């Protein structure tokens, strides 16, 4: 079952409570921030449209960051894009690949929202959702979130003629479903984010697995990306693959329990 956030930008009042709740609840070091609010304005005085881009991970189903991540530090779980910072090697591919410009390198490792995996795993909600004074945020089953977004859009047509759901289809469907009062471009959000390049997909799913230890092919893979991968990636990858197997097994048993 996929989970998702609902972010209703007709409600967001730009207070940044989400930003600080995320920092506090996840005990992020002072220089780390998973959410950033960026003021966006279009038009000329006094005919203006304004709002905030709530810049954070969009949790793409076809996640470019996951596709390019050579260590598996970025991975999909419950429809969300997780990041295990301990497994990150700091190559920075995700920073370049993300169509929304979300991951940042902090302290030599990737940094981005993981949808409060630990808190949600313990039966809670993401910290941004629980605090939002505007109740612009919800979190839950993606199908229900999408339905909620659509029903809100229907109810908001009078006030916002261009109101729309964003995230149903983009990047294979987003785990951050937005209710936007206007076209996404007004908030500097791409209407159609570029898909994961085929070359990256090929590298990740065909070249990389086959070429474990095969220097030449690895070099080809690196060449495709235009970046030289670190040598120790290969050793790390092997180790991580073993961990991944354990992880997948555990994940499988969990979902069985849930189905009961």
């Amino acid at each position, binding site marked *: 079952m996929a989970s998702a956030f609902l972010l209703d930008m007709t409600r967001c009042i730009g207070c940044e409570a989400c930003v600080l709740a995320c920092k*506090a609840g996840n005990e992020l070091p002072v220089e780390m921030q998973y959410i950033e609010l960026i003021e966006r304005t279009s038009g000329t005085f006094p005919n203006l449209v*304004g709002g905030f881009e709530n810049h954070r991970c969009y949790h793409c189903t076809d996640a470019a960051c996951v596709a390019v991540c050579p260590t598996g530090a970025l991975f999909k779980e419950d429809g969300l894009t997780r990041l295990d910072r301990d497994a990150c090697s700091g190559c920075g591919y995700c920073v370049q690949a993300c169509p929304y410009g979300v991951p940042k390198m902090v302290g030599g490792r990737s940094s981005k929202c993981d949808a409060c995996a630990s808190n949600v795993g313990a039966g809670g909600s993401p910290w941004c959702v629980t605090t939002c004074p505007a109740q612009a945020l919800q979190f839950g089953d993606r199908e229900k979130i999408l339905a909620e977004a659509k029903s809100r859009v229907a109810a908001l047509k009078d006030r916002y003629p261009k109101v729309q759901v964003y995230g149903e289809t983009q990047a294979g469907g987003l785990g951050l479903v937005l209710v936007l009062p206007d076209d996404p471009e007004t908030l500097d959000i791409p209407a159609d984010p570029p898909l994961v390049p085929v070359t990256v997909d090929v590298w990740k799913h065909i070249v990389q697995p086959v070429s474990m230890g095969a220097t030449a092919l690895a070099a080809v893979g690196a060449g495709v990306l235009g970046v030289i991968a670190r040598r120790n990636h290969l050793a790390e990858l092997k180790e991580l693959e073993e961990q991944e197997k354990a992880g997948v097994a555990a994940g499988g048993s969990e979902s069985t329990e849930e189905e009961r």
Partner: protein
Amino acid sequence: MARVDLQITRRQFLATGLAGTALAGTGMGPGRSNLSMRYPDPPWFATGEVVTTYNYCDMCPWKCGIAVQSVDGKVIKIDGNAPDPKSRGRLCGRGQAGVSFMNDPDRLQSPMIRTGERGEGKFREVTWEEALDYTAEKLLAIKDQYGPESLAIFGHTSGDFWFTDYFAQAWGTPNAAKPSSALCLSPRDEASTLTFGHAVGGHEPMDWEEMQCITLIGSHIGEDARNTVMQDFVEARARGAQVIVVDPRFSTAAAKADYWLPIKPGTDTALLLAWINVLITEERYDRAYIDQWATGFDELASHIQEFTPEWAAGITDLSADQIRTTIRVMADRSPQAVIMPGRHVTWYGNDTQRMRAEYLVNSLLGVYGRHGGMYFNKSPFLDSYPHPPFAVHGSSGGCSAEPGEESDVLPLGPSGKARADGAREAFLRGPTAMQELIDPMITDDPYRIAGLIVYGTNLLNSVPMPNRTIEALKKLDFVLAVDVLPQEHVAWADVVFPEATYLERYDQLSTVPHKTPFIQLREPAVPPMYDTMPGWMMARELGLRVGLDAFFKWETIEEYLNTRLRSVGSNLEKMHEAGGVIIQEGKPYLEDFEADGGTPFHTPSGKIELSVAELAEAGLDSIPVYEPTEEPPDGYYRLLYGRAPVHTFAKTQNTPDLSAVYPENELWINEDEAVALGYANGDRVWLENEAGDRTGPIAVKATQRIRKDAVFMVHGFGQQSSGLTNANGKGASDTKLMSRYKLDPISGGAGLRVNFVRLTEGG
């Protein structure tokens, strides 16, 4: 003399513990089995027992009820307290950063006594015994030489009660002041008292749940991040309520508005008079309500005849059509249509009259005591801790004063002196005006003020004319600074008392006048860090040393609080178990008063006074008129200022998490003006006012979101204190550009939007 062993603080805390707080956190238990396998480190709430304590937030003056979660004696996470009527389980960004505020490495850590010159910031660390004894000696010397009135006490934020209210009244000085009065709320509260017979109250009594139209005049919901107001505003709007925003700037709230009126600064009263004109001439006002509950209507009706929308259009830069349309939108939804009383309303010096004009519109719409309008708030019942009669009653007043302070006769101190701020002469009424106490410190007129206690007020970054304040600080015999951080003025103190933050102390109970009056608990999550002390303990220890033993009879704060709580059938333990809040019944609507034949309006007439005789008797306008404000000279812009959602006043700029999110302010200037001046976004400029005061550098934000005749910046930046790692020298200071203000002749408020600045290069 029964003194508390000062070394006991921490020990006592650990021994007695927190009454009944060894409970697991309500939200999160220890870790569950289904944490993601990919995260080897358990999250904080899975590493030990989560202990929850209840508190009210001190990151801004709004005082949201909070639940504080700690693990192994470490405070980790603060959330809104679900049953609290202010937070309802949610919290703003500043509240979320409370742990970061507490753990700020720049905190004052030990009591200190000055060794260098005033302003040099050279101190030696001393014991509490020495700091308290020395301070007591200095205070008593001032009292002996000049009388108790010669001690001024300035205080702000939630512990200020102990100094600005309690100690001041016991000691006998009428010169206690809060910036929340004359630098903020006085005009709206005096206007309300004159019109309705009661102040607005700290928590504006807006009946949001049924409101159909909200008008904001210079209120910046969203940028002003008061949690409850944001919740209510967004919810009302989502329900379909219309929003009208009057602001020279396309604020966050303006971006949410159905109607934005980009008014010329300083002309709001003209707009309000035109709205009244339309309501009366088009007979859109609530005639039955006015007949029953108001006096002075005929006078008002003849007063506003010439103030047509066409007249106001020429003054306000708005169109007559905009003016008519918006008041009709309000009238169509009355009485569920309210102009929200602003908060910081000391703008142009005629502010009480402007606020009166707002209230007249509201009155004509029939909103007071009506569902979906403005309800009548009620203070919660709670006995005081018994104490002897005060030496002077009602020292400071303001938004957190005990009710009933205002009287016709100014209270006199023990040596027969009234307030030194010029009340009843320079201005008519209202609480002690902080900025009016600075001149007496320099001139000894009307009498010498020789000592100053500053509790939690960032003196040089909140009171206008900071150069004058420094002159006063140089002349005082004694200055005590009580603070959590080495704010700029702390360098000018003789003694520094480092305070424990709200997360580290018990404190006075917070009593909130409300639709459902309520009482909030503050209990410590952890003992005081470093060698700090709660404010109540400092005030008590000083009191015991200056002969005020009778006012500080309690041995422990727990005894004090339990004694008060007994009057509502509770105690600390019960209140903790009840979730840290006690909610009582209110009397919010007109029908509640009609039932027993009473009136909610405590004016001379017992009704809403559209025309005020007291003003006419004082030679002032009984009904508001529009007074033009001075225009900026060529090359200058009017300086406007406001808030960023993650900062409070000049208090939070150094808090690591908040500084990381919003490290410095920017200068909003109309993009076309910036281009004409040759500046682009991000260019760094210095600002200079007409008096030649300079501040900066500040980054230019060239934007379409502001009129061409004004610039805007977030207040509280441009601080100069080397002890503040994150805040020192960041951005520009609006306060340092306030080389003048215009005194409101009614409330004593300091109109601050009368300063003009230009952009310059270099330092």
